[in-house]
C-alpha cells in the first residue's frame, strides 16, 4: 500500500487517469468494433474476423502502400535537409541558435491548413510560380498542383520541425572533445561523421526519423489539399469508412492496422533509448 503514497504516484495520477479515459478507452473501443460484422453500430454482435479478411481482398492495401512509401520518402528527404541545420544549431550558431529555434518553431503554431494553402497559391495554375514564369519567361508551368510531388513537398514542409528538433537534441549530446580526438588521430571528415557523430547522436536521430515517419503515416490534410484526387492515403480511407460509408467496423480495422504498425515502431524505439537521458541531457 506504500506504492500509492509516493509523491510521484500522486502527481502522476491526474494525467494518467485522464489519458486512460481519453486515450486507452477509445482505442480499446476501436479494437472491439474491428471484430463486429459490417455496418453495425453496436458492440453487441457476435465477433467475426471478416473485416480483417476483406481489407486484404479489397484494395485497401493500395492506400496503405502509398502511406508507407510517402512516409519513408519524406524521412529520406528530411534527414539530409535537416542534419546540417541541426548541426549548426547545436554546435555552430552560438547565440543565433535561439533565434533560429524560434523561427522554426513559430510555423508549428500556425494551422497547417493555412500553410498548405500558401503552397496551393504558389503552385496553382496562374498562381505565384506559374504567373512569375509567364511574365518573366513567357512559359506556363501549370499542372504542378494535385500531383504526388506536390504532396511530398507539403509533407516535407509540414513535418520538417519534427525531424529537426530531435536531431538538434541528438547532436548536442556529442561531446566536442570526442570529435577533436578522432580528428587528431587522423580521421577524415566522413569518418568522424560516420564513426563518431552518427552513433552518439543516434537517440535523437531515431526519435526524429520515427516521429516524422509516424506523423506522415497518419497524415490527412497534405494529400487532400495539395494532392486533390491524385492518390488516397490510409487516413483518408479511414475517414471515408467512418463518415461517408458509415461502416464503423471497416474503419476500425484500418485504424487497428495503422495503430499496430505505428505502435510496433514506437515500442521498438522506446526499448532502445533512455528518455531521461535524451530529454534531461543527463
Amino acid at each position, binding site marked *: 500500500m506504500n506504492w500509492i503514497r*509516493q509523491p510521484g504516484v500522486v502527481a502522476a495520477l491526474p494525467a494518467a487517469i485522464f*489519458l486512460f479515459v481519453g486515450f486507452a478507452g477509445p482505442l480499446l473501443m476501436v479494437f472491439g468494433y474491428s471484430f463486429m460484422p459490417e455496418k453495425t453500430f453496436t458492440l453487441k454482435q457476435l465477433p467475426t474476423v471478416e473485416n480483417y479478411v476483406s481489407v486484404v481482398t479489397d484494395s485497401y492495401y493500395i492506400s496503405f502502400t502509398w502511406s508507407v512509401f510517402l512516409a519513408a520518402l519524406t524521412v529520406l528527404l528530411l534527414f539530409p535537409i535537416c542534419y546540417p541545420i541541426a548541426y*549548426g544549431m547545436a554546435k555552430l550558431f552560438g547565440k543565433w541558435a535561439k533565434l533560429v529555434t524560434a523561427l522554426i518553431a*513559430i510555423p508549428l503554431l500556425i494551422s497547417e*491548413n493555412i500553410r498548405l494553402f500558401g503552397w496551393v*497559391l504558389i503552385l496553382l495554375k496562374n498562381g505565384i510560380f506559374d504567373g512569375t514564369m509567364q*511574365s518573366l519567361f513567357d512559359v506556363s508551368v501549370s499542372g504542378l498542383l494535385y500531383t504526388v510531388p506536390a504532396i511530398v513537398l507539403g509533407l516535407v514542409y509540414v513535418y520538417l520541425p519534427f525531424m529537426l528538433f530531435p536531431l538538434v537534441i541528438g547532436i548536442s549530446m556529442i561531446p566536442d572533445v570526442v570529435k577533436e580526438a578522432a580528428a587528431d588521430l587522423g580521421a577524415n571528415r566522413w569518418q568522424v561523421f560516420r564513426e563518431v557523430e552518427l552513433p552518439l547522436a543516434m537517440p535523437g536521430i531515431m526519435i526524429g526519423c520515427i516521429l516524422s515517419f509516424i506523423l506522415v503515416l497518419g497524415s490527412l490534410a497534405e494529400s487532400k489539399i495539395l494532392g486533390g484526387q491524385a492518390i488516397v492515403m490510409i487516413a483518408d480511407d479511414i475517414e471515408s469508412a*467512418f463518415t461517408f460509408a458509415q461502416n464503423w467496423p471497416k474503419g476500425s480495422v484500418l485504424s487497428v492496422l495503422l495503430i499496430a504498425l*505505428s505502435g510496433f515502431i514506437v515500442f521498438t524505439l522506446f526499448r532502445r533509448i533512455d528518455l531521461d537521458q535524451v530529454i*534531461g541531457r543527463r
Partner: protein
Amino acid sequence: MTGTFPTRHSTTLTAIWTIVVLLFLYIPMMAVVLASFSKLRYFRFPITGWTTEWYSKTLESLSVRDLLWTSLSVATLVTVLSVGLAFFGALAFARYDWTGRKLYQRLVLLPIFFPQAVLGLSLLLWFSALGITTSWKTAVFAHMIWIVPIVILIISIQVYSFDSALEEAAFDLGASRWQVMKEITLPIMSPGIVSGGIFAFLLSWGNFPLSLFSTGADQTVPEWLYAKMVSGYTPMVPTLGSLTMSGAAILLLLIYLAWMAIVRRKRGRAGSQ
C-alpha cells in the same frame, strides 16, 4: 590542419542553407498574406488590383465571429486545463523517483506518436458510445489528449534542470509543503509553464484533425478554412488565414515583451540589493 574544424567555410555554408530553409518555411505564409489583399474573387498572379475590403467583409461576417469565438473558447479552456494537469504530470515525469516512472514516461508520450486523425475518429466512437453529443466541449477533451502529453514534455525539460536541494533546504528551514510549492517550485518552473501554456493555446487554436471529428455542429477556424479550400476559392480564406496568423504573431510578441520586462525587473532588483 585537420584538427580545427568546424572551419569558417562550413559554418558559412551551414548558415546559408539554414536561411534557405527558413525562407522555404515562410514563403507560403507570405503568399497567403499577399493573396488576402488581392481584389479579384479568384487568385491570379501577378496581382493587378489591391484592396482591404475582404478584411472588413470578413470581420463583419457573423459566421466568422462565431468561428473565432468557438476557436478561442476551445483554446483557452485547453490551455488552462492542460497546464494544470501537465504541471503535476511533469513532476511525476522528471522530478520524483518512483516505481513505475519509466513505464509512465513511455505511456504518457504515446498520444504524441499517434496519428491524430485516427485519434479523432476513435474519440468520436467513444463519445457516441457514452451517449455524449459532440460539440466544442468535446473538442476541448479531444485536443487535451494530444496537448497534455506535449505540455508535460515541455514542462519536464524545465523540471530536469531543477535542483531538488532547493526544496529540501526550504523544508529544513521549516517551510510547509504549500509554501515550498508557492515560493520555490512554481517560480523555478514558471518558464516551462509559460512556454507550455503558449504551445497549448496555439496548438489547440491551429488544430485541424482532432477538431474535424470532435466538434459536432460547432466549427473552429481551421475546419472552416479546410471546408472552403476543398470546395473552391473564396477571398475570405486567405483573409481569415492572415488574420489568425497575425493574431498568433501578436500574441507571441506580447508574451515575449512581457517576459523580457519581468526578467529585466528581476535583474534590476538583484542588482540594487
